[in-house]
């Protein structure tokens, strides 16, 4: 009989104990999938939402712009660069934008804010959160027209409605104060008060003209990619384009450091709590294996007496830990699959408790607790729990081969 077969039979000597330990591993899988899956879903959501708020997953901008965003810094030949970027594998969309500070004034009030000048032909609900969040009117259709879409809180401050005039004043490429007039075509409500209170969308050609920019000049190319986890790779690909030579290419982590910090902090907390759960499971396995070893001391003595070496005995107990881990992981997959299916498709709606406008790290967070587990996260969960289970088996395995056979045989 080989070691595998013997180890397999040994773990079923005490069925109840083995099943309890296996279920604790399985429960660990369920917890880890829930928390990691929720993290994968929420972080992706936050990053994608952050990307659709203006800067994309990868941002191409003038050198030094993100440190000091003044409108005298600008990219040239943006249309050609945009086309090159869109042709790259993994890019879902790329839009040319001008971002800047402005003073908005109505007939009654003046309010400081910020604008994103966009080409309506390339902007949609998919890649632009502000368009997605329009609650009144619609986005302007003419890139050279006089439309403006403003946040609901900004509209309230300015006391304007759809069709009303708003004057925006900013500094142009030469540092001169310039202004233009626009008529409100839409009002958005993202739920994030800061955004709703200061942001406005303007037609890009009008803004280029106002700022004395050439038609192929802008401050930002926002690149949206298919999978946010590949932002670093995409940054390198874009930076390698000859047209991007005189530009800064940043990932969302660099262009939105606050969001990156919030996610990193949250992830760290998540990892620590998962590690604690993992350690609790490991202690359970350690206990099971140690009990199993201690109650077989005499048997191990017999095995050593008939010629089994301490090394092979160590291996036997480790193989038992291996099988126990495998059984636990399989049970974990069985009990987690329906739970994950529920979280993936339906989730738990917390909007009753937190409302629908819950924001974290400056971006909106879905109040429905859902899970989307990346393949590598699943592998990491199974791999980590498997390794923890094997590590927990090390001491009992070492202990098994340590007792001299003559002592083991004395035990009852």
């Amino acid at each position, binding site marked *: *009989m*080989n070691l595998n077969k*013997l180890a397999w*039979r*040994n773990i079923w*000597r005490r069925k109840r104990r083995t099943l309890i330990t296996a279920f604790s591993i399985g429960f660990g899988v369920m917890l880890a999938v829930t928390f990691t899956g929720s993290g994968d879903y929420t972080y992706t959501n936050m990053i994608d939402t952050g990307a659709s708020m203006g800067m994309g997953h990868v941002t191409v901008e003038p050198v030094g712009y993100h440190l000091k965003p003044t409108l005298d810094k600008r990219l040239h030949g943006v249309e050609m660069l945009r086309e090159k970027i869109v042709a790259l594998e993994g890019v879902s969309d790329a839009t040319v934008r001008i971002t800047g500070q402005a003073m908005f004034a109505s007939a009654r009030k003046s309010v400081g804010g910020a604008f994103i000048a966009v080409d309506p032909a390339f902007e949609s609900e998919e890649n632009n959160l502000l368009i997605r969040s329009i609650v009144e009117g619609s986005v302007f259709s003419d890139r050279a027209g006089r439309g403006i879409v403003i946040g609901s809180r900004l509209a309230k401050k300015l006391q304007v409605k759809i069709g009303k005039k708003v004057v925006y004043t900013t500094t142009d490429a030469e540092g001169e104060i310039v202004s233009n007039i626009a008529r409100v075509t839409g009002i958005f409500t993202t739920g994030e008060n800061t955004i709703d209170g200061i942001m406005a969308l303007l037609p890009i050609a009008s803004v280029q003209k106002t700022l004395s920019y050439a038609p192929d000049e802008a401050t930002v190319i926002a690149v949206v990619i298919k999978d946010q986890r590949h932002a670093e790779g995409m940054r390198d690909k874009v930076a390698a384009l000859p047209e991007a030579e005189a530009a800064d290419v940043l990932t969302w982590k660099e262009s939105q450091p606050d969001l990156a910090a919030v996610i990193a902090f949250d992830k760290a907390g998540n990892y620590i709590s998962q590690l604690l759960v993992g350690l609790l499971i490991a202690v359970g396995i350690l206990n099971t294996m140690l009990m199993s070893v201690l109650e077989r001391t*005499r*048997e191990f003595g*017999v*095995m*050593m*007496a*008939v*010629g*089994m*070496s*301490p*090394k*092979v005995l160590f291996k036997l107990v480790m193989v038992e830990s291996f099988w126990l881990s495998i059984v636990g992981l399989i049970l974990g997959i069985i009990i987690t699959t329906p739970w994950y299916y529920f979280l993936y498709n339906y989730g738990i709606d917390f909007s009753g408790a937190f409302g629908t406008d819950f924001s974290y790290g400056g971006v909106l967070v879905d109040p429905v607790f859902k899970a989307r587990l990346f393949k590598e996260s699943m592998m990491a969960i199974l791999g980590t729990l498997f390794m923890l289970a094997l590590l927990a088996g090390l001491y009992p395995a070492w202990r098994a081969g340590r007792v*001299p*056979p*003559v002592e083991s*045989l004395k035990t009852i």
Partner: protein
Amino acid sequence: MNKNEHIVQMQSVIKTYRQGKVDVHAVNGVSLAIENGDFAVLCGPSGSGKTSILNLIGGLDVPSSGRVWVDGVDLSTLDSTQLSSVRKDRIGFVFQAYNLIPVMTAYENAEFVLNLQGVSEAESRERVMATLKAVGLEGLEHRRPDEMSGGQQQRVAIARAIVTRPAIVLADEPTANVDSHTAESLLDLMQQLNREQGITFLFSTHDQHVIDRARRIITIHDGKIESDEIQA
């Protein structure tokens, strides 16, 4: 005396155990030689040192001083892994409490040591089946220990001990846990194996049935050899 002429040789062996603050000499200067094909017993009262001597010969314990040779190998020079190897290849053990592995069948218990030796599956099968037949367990190969009587379990233990064709079988009180009828049949079996296959047996016992069957009786008292007689 040439060490290679004997399966076992002990030379001035002392084994001292520490019990609290007192040193107890379980084996006190024993010199002994067991010949190939012998059927010998170590007898004496409880605590006389019989099992300690058996453990030293079996490489389960190491002497405090003196030397032990088994099949020409000096055990005092070996580490725990090498001792395991000697036990696996040269020594068979039969214990008082059978000590079979409960999750294994009779066949698998007997096969276990051959697996450790790396014997091929086909050869293992042939040897195990022949050995189980020799110990009278033909047809019971697939029974687990809890499905067999004490006598049958001890037969499996004997099969496990002899299947590797060891230089010597060390049997520690092999009849202590079985009734007298079973004890007689086990002794018949071991005597037959000794006679027909030339397997050397060394018993530790105070069972008169075993002593009566032995060719050589070594009496131990207070860790020393009190007498060493050959029976006619």
